[in-house]
């Protein structure tokens, strides 16, 4: 059983109509969306809607993924994976191929999106991803094969979605499927047992990947190499604390990492503000001297002060704009009166 022969077997030309053996639903294949170790995903049409259809000559992996999607469906109000629409077999001349049909999630990939819209979207997407992961972990699953290729950003208001559940594993078992660069075991930083930390490591590697689009290869491996790579990149500077903690497996939950990420983004905004805007007020001085070792409470109060100040400043700008607009209209009025 060779990998490329598998691809040939499931290779279906656009226009082919696939009819299920059990549920008799008909799908028209439109184009290939992508393929991986466990099968090919096609864009297909059912009646008048677009769907994604995944087929594989390995019926086991199809069944296994369907199991995961079904259990996701039980989690209320979540968008953990694509929703499952149909499971069936397709009988054709060479035999039987198992497939399942899911909602078609449309949008650019994670990396493309960041490239197009700019790095300010990175923390937003990460926060969304981490809250999805938190839900996933709470339901006893670990995503496993977390990587940019498995993440799509849908619109109109950007929302990150995970699309390939092939690696999703029950907590406590051995990870089913992984990709080396995002794998904790590959870097020598932990086991391949499914626990929340495994996914959080992958999230940290995804952040690193945004700074190194071509990724990099393992030389010495271990935390030293990764820490150096993080230090060498300016773009990663503000995430450094969060990344290192995730790499070292110090987060117990996605929630914890999410909270730290929020703190690190707000702290960073504060710093850049003080850098561009010179002011010697007491508050600012306090904030600058505050280090990472300060207690949680200090950090919270600092960010609160920051927020208050932002509000104050916002009020001033608002008043200014309003006055300008009114003056402008008044000027027009006088101008009209003169003519």
């Amino acid at each position, binding site marked *: 059983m060779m990998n490329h022969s598998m691809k040939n077997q499931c290779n279906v030309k656009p226009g082919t109509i696939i009819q299920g053996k059990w549920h008799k639903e008909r799908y028209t294949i439109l184009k290939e969306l992508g393929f991986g170790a466990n099968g090919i995903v096609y864009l297909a049409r059912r009646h008048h809607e677009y769907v994604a259809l995944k087929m594989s000559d390995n019926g086991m992996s199809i*069944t296994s993924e*369907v199991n995961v999607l079904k259990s996701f469906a039980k989690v209320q109000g979540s968008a953990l994976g694509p929703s499952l629409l149909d*499971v069936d077999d397709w009988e054709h001349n060479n035999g039987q191929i198992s497939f399942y049909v899911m909602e078609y999630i449309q949008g650019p990939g994670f990396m493309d999106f960041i490239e197009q819209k700019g790095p300010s979207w990175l923390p937003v997407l990460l926060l969304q991803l981490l809250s999805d992961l938190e839900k996933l972990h709470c339901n006893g699953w670990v995503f496993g094969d977390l990587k940019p290729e498995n993440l799509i950003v849908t619109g109109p208001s950007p929302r990150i979605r995970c699309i390939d559940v092939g690696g999703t594993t*029950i907590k406590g*078992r*051995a990870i089913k499927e992984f990709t*080396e660069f995002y794998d904790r*075991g590959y870097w020598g930083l932990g*086991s*391949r047992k499914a626990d929340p930390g495994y996914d959080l490591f992958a999230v940290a590697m995804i952040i690193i990947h945004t700074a190194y689009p071509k990724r990099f290869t393992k030389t010495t491996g271990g935390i030293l190499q990764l820490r150096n790579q993080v230090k060498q990149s300016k773009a990663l500077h503000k995430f450094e604390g969060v990344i290192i903690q995730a790499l070292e497996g110090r987060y117990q939950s996605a929630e914890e990492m999410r909270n730290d990420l929020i703190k690190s983004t707000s702290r960073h905004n504060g710093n850049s503000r003080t850098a561009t805007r010179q002011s010697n007020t007491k508050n600012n001085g306090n904030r600058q001297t505050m280090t990472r070792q300060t207690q949680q409470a200090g950090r919270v109060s600092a960010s609160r002060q920051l927020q208050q100040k932002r509000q104050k400043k916002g009020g001033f700008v608002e008043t200014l704009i309003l006055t300008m607009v009114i003056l402008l209209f008044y000027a027009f009025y006088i101008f009209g009166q003169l003519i």
Partner: protein
Amino acid sequence: MKTGTLKQILLITDGCSNQGDDPIAMAALAKEQGITVNVIGVMDQDVIDEQGLKEIEGISLAGGGVSQVVYAHKLSQTVQMVTRKAMTQTLQGVVNKELQQILGRSHTLEDLPPEKRGEVMEVVDELGETVELEVLILVDTSASMKQKLPTVKEALLDLSLSLNARSGENRFSVFVFPGKKNEVDKLLDWTPRLESLTGVFSKLTTGGITPTGPAINEALQYFKKKRSLRSLLSRDDESFYEESV
């Protein structure tokens, strides 16, 4: 369901055998004794010739296992994937057999409606996590493999990392062919951890011939030896018999 021990031979080679018994026949012999044979062909920049490719596919087919040809840098990921895939395949065979006993001859997993398959798959998954696994690794150390050996070592360490994440027990053992004096040399006796390989592997010398057939045969004998030893300890050692899929 009884969980016995899954037995696998993992052959890592880069070309065609050129001495001794037909490796495909030896693989078929292994399959008859409930031992799956998987093959990984390692390429450098060049492509493996047609004959070598045929042999690789032939061995895994006859041995009821999985084969894959990869570039050296992809080896780690492939080794663990192939082992895992073969494991699931064997377990599926076992589950299929049980299903046939319950539902009648003509029923396999594929004949069940997709809704029912899910539950069966959960059983297979569960077994894959908990079953005891014995992997005998056969490494081709003919001259052309020389520069690939460090990669092979990495891949084997990675394999033990992957498999040891399961809750079931693992035992590995490593053989190389050609050996110093014999056709096959034992490098590492049954052990749950492959880390002890690190020291031994760097001292390997490479030879000219590729006696793949005799190597598989020797591996088979080694499995048997162990079985008789174990039966002295009166331990039930029922093995899974491969039901080809």
